[in-house]
């Protein structure tokens, strides 16, 4: 009798293993959230510094903001990579295989689209929409990628989409919603994922 149960469990495990990349680390989400909040804090200081003026594209302030955004992004990706490699090793899995490749591609397609769209928006001076757009595309990217990894991630994507829509409804609070979506949400979901999955390894 136990053999039958084990058979079914083995089958299910093999189905998951071959279609989902399960080495994503929850800690990576928490760290990304922390980096985002720190970055948002520095950007708000830049806003305060420029109080009453518009920040033009050519100004050092804007360049600083871009630098901070890039810094947050790079730090998040590098941390995520390191933690994921660590987790994969612990699980005895490879990091770069067909499931992780599928995950990466399906994540990057909407993400790059959003990124290029945001850059084009900047060039056309539609600054107000940048925060909502990045949130929305990021949320969609996550939902798309969730098919190829731990399904819970889907809810992170949905939450970020809602935040993105709220950011569009309440224009002018881009930075706050951005901090909420990229910062707080990542910390919360990262923690949930960490306690749900990583601890048991």
């Amino acid at each position, binding site marked *: 009798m136990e053999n039958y149960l084990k058979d079914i469990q083995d*089958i299910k495990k093999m189905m998951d293993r*071959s279609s989902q990349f399960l080495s994503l680390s929850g800690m990576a989400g928490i760290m990304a959230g922390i980096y985002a909040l720190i970055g948002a804090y520095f950007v708000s200081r830049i806003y305060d510094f420029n109080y009453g003026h518009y920040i033009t594209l050519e100004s050092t302030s804007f360049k600083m903001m871009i630098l901070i955004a890039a810094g947050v992004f790079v730090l998040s990706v590098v941390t995520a990579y390191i933690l994921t490699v660590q987790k994969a090793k612990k699980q005895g899995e490879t990091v770069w295989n067909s499931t992780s490749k599928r995950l990466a591609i399906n994540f990057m397609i909407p993400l790059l689209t959003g990124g290029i769209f945001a850059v084009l928006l900047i060039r056309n001076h539609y600054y107000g929409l940048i925060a909502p757009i990045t949130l929305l595309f990021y949320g969609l990217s996550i939902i798309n990628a969730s098919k190829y990894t731990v399904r819970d991630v889907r809810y992170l994507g949905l939450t970020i989409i809602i935040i993105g829509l709220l950011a569009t409804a309440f224009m002018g609070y881009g930075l706050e919603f951005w901090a909420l979506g990229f910062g707080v949400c990542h910390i919360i979901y990262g923690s949930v994922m960490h306690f749900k999955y990583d601890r048991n390894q």
Partner: protein
Amino acid sequence: MSILVVNEYADFNTLKELLGVTDGNLASHAKALEAEQYIMIEKQFIGKKPKTRYMATKDGRKAFKDHIDALEKLIKKS
């Protein structure tokens, strides 16, 4: 079959890695499944390298589902 049922296709190396079997082992099991018409084997050449892909057939998927249902029934009985 578990792998081929949830993925559109799987190539030789992926199956080998996931199942942890030798080349010969995998090839002979695959031949057996193909004989039952549960899977399709597609051999291609990418440049000079051969690439073998495996896909589940409709019959294969049905057989797999029947197998799972049977297992579940057996478990429920006890």
